[in-house]
């Protein structure tokens, strides 16, 4: 059963330079208990897509389409109802724990607050629960940590504290926006291990630019380019039999595969290229690529590619 079903989602930002289409007719599905990786380079719209599910986009954003969560269209419900979804049903894990934890509140206050908001527990019970969550995340001395401030914790501990805040009210879906960015390899491995453990209790939308990281955590992977999904399949399939030229480019750019960069740079989202948005950077481009936008082509079981090469 699908937990989150995004269909034909369009997000436009009106800017002084013109309309920026950050997400272009994107459709995506996350099933119950599934972890979906959303891969793409900076500025391809993957974070925008995460925020649009939470309805936290800035005011100059226009959203169209449908985001069905357990059958309810999140784009249609009222703000009050939406607040019941945020945190309680869908929680977010942000990039940088140092900036996404409030510096003047203790870790315990921040976790308890979230618990009390959605679960209506008393102060004392909430604190016990906070300690439990920290303990489950293998934070040493959890009952001491709850009365400390973010700046007093090590970066790995902060990361866990932030995850604890997101887990406070047992959400069914976690949107993790590049939780490993800026961490050294050891921390990164720790966080990934945590994320894998989280997978057993919630569904997850894992946003990252690192194909290797995504493949380690996620069941399915969607590759995003300039606001659209260009390839979707199971993580293993993408890693071993990725088909779209952009996916192949991403695979070739992984260090152990030769660190080969993709030529060119991300297209402007104000004036995206005609036809297939990737064609100016594609090595196997044909005539029709610059004229028509390729549709989604099913090339295997649960394997979709948006490329004329496979039509």
């Amino acid at each position, binding site marked *: 059963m699908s937990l989150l079903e995004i269909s034909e989602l369009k997000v436009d930002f009106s800017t002084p330079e013109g309309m920026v289409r950050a997400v272009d007719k994107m459709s995506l599905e996350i099933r119950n208990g599934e972890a979906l990786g959303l891969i793409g380079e900076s500025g391809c719209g993957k974070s925008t897509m995460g925020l649009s599910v939470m309805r936290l986009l800035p005011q100059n954003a226009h959203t169209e389409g449908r985001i069905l969560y357990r059958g309810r269209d999140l784009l249609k419900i009222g703000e009050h109802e939406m607040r019941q979804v945020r945190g309680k049903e869908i929680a977010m894990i942000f990039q940088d724990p140092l900036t996404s934890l409030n510096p003047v509140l203790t870790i315990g206050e921040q976790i308890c607050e979230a618990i009390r908001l959605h679960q209506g527990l008393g102060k004392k019970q909430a604190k016990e629960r906070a300690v439990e969550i920290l303990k489950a995340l293998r934070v040493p001395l959890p009952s001491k940590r709850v*009365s400390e401030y973010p700046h007093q914790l090590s970066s790995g501990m902060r990361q866990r504290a932030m995850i604890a805040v997101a887990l406070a009210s047992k959400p069914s879906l976690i949107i993790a926006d590049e939780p490993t960015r800026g961490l050294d390899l050891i921390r990164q491995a720790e966080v990934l291990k945590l994320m894998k453990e989280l997978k057993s209790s919630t569904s997850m939308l894992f946003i990252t630019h690192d194909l290797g990281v995504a493949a380690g955590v996620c069941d399915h992977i969607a590759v995003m380019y300039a606001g659209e999904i260009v390839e979707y399949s199971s993580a293993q399939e993408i890693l071993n039999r990725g088909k779209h030229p952009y996916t192949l480019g991403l695979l070739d750019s992984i260090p152990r595969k030769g660190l080969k960069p993709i030529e060119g740079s991300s297209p402007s989202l104000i004036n995206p290229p005609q036809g297939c948005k990737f064609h100016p950077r594609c090595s196997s481009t044909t005539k029709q690529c610059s004229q028509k936008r390729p549709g989604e082509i099913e090339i295997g079981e649960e394997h979709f590619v948006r490329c004329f090469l496979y039509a």
Partner: protein
Amino acid sequence: MRRLEFFLRLKERKIALVGMAIIALLILVAILAPFISPHDPVEQNLGQRLLGPGKQYPLGTDNLGRCVLSRIIYGARTSLSLGIIVVGVTTVGGTILGLIAGYRGGIVDQIIMRLVDIMFAFPAIILAIALAGVLGPGLSGILLAMVIVGWAGYARVVRGSVLSIKEKEYIEAARALGFSDQHIMVHHILPNVMAPIIVMATLSLAFIILMVAGLGFLGLGAQPPTPDWGKMLTEGRPFMRTAPQLTVFPGLAIMVTAMAFIFLSEGLREALNPRREVAR
């Protein structure tokens, strides 16, 4: 934990401790005024006019034979209570309006900030004179004048901080957890702007006490025979050469009080600076 650290930091600043001691003493004196003042501050003894400091009258007497020390002690009540009321009301009011202006933005922000501009352009003394004209001279007039003008500074400072804080990722994170706007304003943004507010409030106590004295000197504040430091300066002025105690002691009281608040605010500024770690 947090309080302990705060006091440890404050303790390092000797100047803040001096300020705090003086303020504590002043508050104590103001509260205990009926028990510690040697005489009734309004009782006139025309046989004992313009005496120098002596045994019976420690700081001498004024031109109506009233005890200068007793009048200074009771004067502390006027200055401190007025200062605390004005600072309390303006801090709370200004902070709330600044929070709303900064957080909501748009038209609400425009309206509040234009009001702030008007208040900044409006001299408190003129307003106090105008209000004295309407309400009659007395403490209520200057109190109202200072409240009307005083909130603007807080609103401006708070709004500025809120504008930068509301863009922080942890506010977005709070929103992603489903907190309402009011909750975010009060529980997530307000604690982040508390430090400058506290420093500003302490500092403005100093200026309000100077202001009360100044307005009293102009005859706008407390009316005779209520003891008031500013008023005492006016009354003592004609006798500056023959009986300097009439102006020197109230002047000292004003100066010491204002200085004590400035010292404390200076120490608080250091102690509340989050970028500074305590040395233990």
